[in-house]
């Protein structure tokens, strides 16, 4: 099998990273949309360990895990580089990409799936993590400098998912006054060519994430009730 295939879902923010990278590099590829409640045999064959999207398949060779996919794309098609050349700058970029996934995403998700006092408490680490990103943007338009780079793609989910989550919970997380640089970056990134043409439909996202929040809160309440009734 020759060519590039990308297994994704319509909504996965992780898969969008690969979409953006391929489009920035001008690589032709075929999209296979997966229904995660009914995974295709191909997906299970190409990602037997995690059985998740995204998976990039290049000339029959599968690569899983979105940040690893980004590195593969950057190393295979060397024009329009996503990572800088200097080893220390590359290490810094990888650090912030990992920070985004390990800390920013998890802490914001925590705010999203909680309510009341628990949600207030979850806001504290979420805002602390965002402050680090705000600092990192000082003197820069994008995390990559003048142009979009590896870290921008890794953190890019902030560019549209934040406002969706904020709308659902009725809470402002990235306040323009507290986070002027981050707010400006989110706008610049979301409106950038290539990026703006590939966001999933907002109304569909709101329905999906509202349902996810409701289900998570219900499950947590059921678990708490079961624990106290023993």
């Amino acid at each position, binding site marked *: 099998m020759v060519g590039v295939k990308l297994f994704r879902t319509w909504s996965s923010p992780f898969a969008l990273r690969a979409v953006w990278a391929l489009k920035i590099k001008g690589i032709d590829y075929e999209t296979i949309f997966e229904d995660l409640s009914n995974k295709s045999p191909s997906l299970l064959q190409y990602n*037997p*360990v995690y059985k998740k999207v995204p998976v990039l398949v*290049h000339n029959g*060779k599968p*690569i*899983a*895990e979105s940040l*690893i*996919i980004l*590195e*593969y794309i950057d*190393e*295979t098609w060397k024009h329009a580089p996503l990572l800088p050349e200097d*080893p*220390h700058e*590359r*290490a*810094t970029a*990888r*650090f912030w990409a*990992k*920070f985004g996934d390990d800390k920013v995403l998890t802490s914001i998700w925590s705010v999203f799936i909680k309510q009341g006092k628990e949600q207030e408490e979850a806001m504290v680490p979420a805002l602390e993590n965002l402050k*680090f990103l705000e600092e990192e943007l000082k003197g820069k338009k994008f995390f990559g400098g003048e142009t979009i780079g590896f870290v921008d793609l890794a953190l890019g989910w902030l560019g549209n998912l934040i406002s969706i989550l904020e709308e659902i919970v009725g809470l402002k997380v990235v306040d323009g006054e507290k986070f002027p640089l981050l707010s400006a970056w989110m706008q610049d990134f979301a409106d950038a060519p290539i990026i703006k043409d590939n966001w999933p439909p907002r109304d569909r996202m709101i329905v999906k994430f509202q349902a996810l929040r409701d289900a998570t809160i219900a499950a947590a309440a059921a678990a708490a009730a079961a624990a106290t009734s023993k």
Partner: protein
Amino acid sequence: MEKQSEVKLFGTWSSGYCTRKKLALKVKGIPYEYVEEDLSNKSDLLIHHNPVHKKVPVLVHNGKAIAESLVILEYIDEHWNHTPKLLPEDPYERAKVRFWANFYDQKFKPSIYNIMTSKGKEQEKAIEDSREVRKVFEEGIERDFPAKSPFLNGGPLGFLDIVVGSSACNFKAMNEAVGVVVDPEKNPAFCDWVTAMKDCPLMKETLPPHDRLVAKMRSKFSLHSAAT
């Protein structure tokens, strides 16, 4: 040639993540100054160099800090890009190594930690879960690296040897401290690899001293371990 003081490694003697950096620097022949941190009383320098996580290991090279274990390893390979190389050259081979290094850190290590920090029925489940994870790992490594074992085939240590070996080689200490964590009879392939790595001279001289590690693990995990 780098001056001794140009490369500093902040770490703790028992941390497998720190062992990784020592191994990588030694493989590349880079002299470095090692700074032992007391994590109950972190130095101002550590906090200055890693303000985000305030953790070890941190590599400081010419005054510039790099944190996060796998990020540091890639930096060492890229900055000192002479042979021996830690990562393979081909992008697809590199992707596979990165995948399994990530799997080891995100799935394998936590599954072991769960055994060490649970007891009774919970620990039995944790042992079973960990065995499953090890199976996935063994099968995956065999599938993705069919030509040769990535673990010490007479060549110098590579990225995955360093990532896995730095903590896997301590399983004997864990088995002694807490009770059987990795059973050679249940995971023979994995244990063979670990034994091969342990025989590597560089690994022998870099791993934390066995008895000291057993003592530390006993005191750290004694509250959780099941009665043996």
